[in-house]
């Protein structure tokens, strides 16, 4: 056996191992052709092509949540967004309903709280609870995780848009570059938005890809 033949055999063996279960018959078909190839170099090129095809099938069959690190990172981010929503809902409801007798600790926010309707923190509370539920669904790799993340995310974005659209709330001014210590501070909300969109995309991709066998 020449060096090329040995290398071709090893590559084909690797291609068969890399190919997902549902493509094993096709990997076998590619491998069976090797014996019919007269030239060693051609066989090597064929084997490389087989490995390329197997890698392509493997990547296509993989789901983002197959990796525990991806799953944990997604869940952690969604949990952070949930905590943020719940904290906002808690503070606002506390103020609106007068639940606490202690003085409100953030006097600068009182103008905003004054014009905020009661349904705003209630909807935020529901969105926060849904996001917490989404964390469990992400860990359990349920297809409902996409809806559990996307729906409250859209609700939170709409609520934010409504808050911004009220000139008396001064939210727009507080977001403008003039009020930022550094213009780069706006990177964080933009990054947060992008991360959540990416998580929704990954969960959608998860739903599109059949579960590995």
């Amino acid at each position, binding site marked *: 056996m020449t060096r090329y033949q040995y290398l071709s055999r090893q590559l084909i063996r690797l291609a068969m191992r890399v190919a997902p279960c549902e*493509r094993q*018959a*096709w990997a*076998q*078909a*590619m*491998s*069976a*052709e090797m*014996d*019919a*190839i007269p030239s060693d170099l051609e066989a090597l*090129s*064929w084997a*490389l*092509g*087989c*490995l*390329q*095809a197997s890698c*392509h*099938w493997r990547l296509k069959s993989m789901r983002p949540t197959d990796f525990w690190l991806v799953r944990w990172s997604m869940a952690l981010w969604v949990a952070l967004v949930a905590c943020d929503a719940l904290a906002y809902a808690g503070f606002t409801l506390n103020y609106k309903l007068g639940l606490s007798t202690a003085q409100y600790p953030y006097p600068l926010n009182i103008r905003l709280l004054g014009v905020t309707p009661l349904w705003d923190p209630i909807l935020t509370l529901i969105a926060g609870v849904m996001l917490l539920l989404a964390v469990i669904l992400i860990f359990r790799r349920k297809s409902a995780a996409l809806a559990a993340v996307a729906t409250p995310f859209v609700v939170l974005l709409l609520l934010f848009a409504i808050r911004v659209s009220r000139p008396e709330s001064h939210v727009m001014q507080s977001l403008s570059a003039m009020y930022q210590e550094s213009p780069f501070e706006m990177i964080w909300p933009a990054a947060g938005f992008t991360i959540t969109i990416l998580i929704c995309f990954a969960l959608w991709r998860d739903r599109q890809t059949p579960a590995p066998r």
Partner: protein
Amino acid sequence: MTSGRKYSRQTLALLAALIQQPRTWQHGYELSKGTGLKSGTLYPMLIRLSDQGLLDSRWKDAERPGRPPRHVYRLTASGMALAREQVRVAAESGFGVRPIKVGER
């Protein structure tokens, strides 16, 4: 009648190779030689055509004993109709269908 779907030049080359001998079962290596397609391009295309119900495949015992059986392919009836139509459209548009040269995209 046209299917409305646009196929890549590689797929057209494969369809043209398959339609040349519509009743004959062809091996992957033969198709690769006939079309100039590498195995890494050819097999994903064969799978796609097979998934769309345009291609039939089966295992055929090797001519020489001791060799593994080989996978062979031929177009289904709907595959033949589509291939004829696509090859005709490509010919009418002036591009024609020819084997892919090495390094050509």
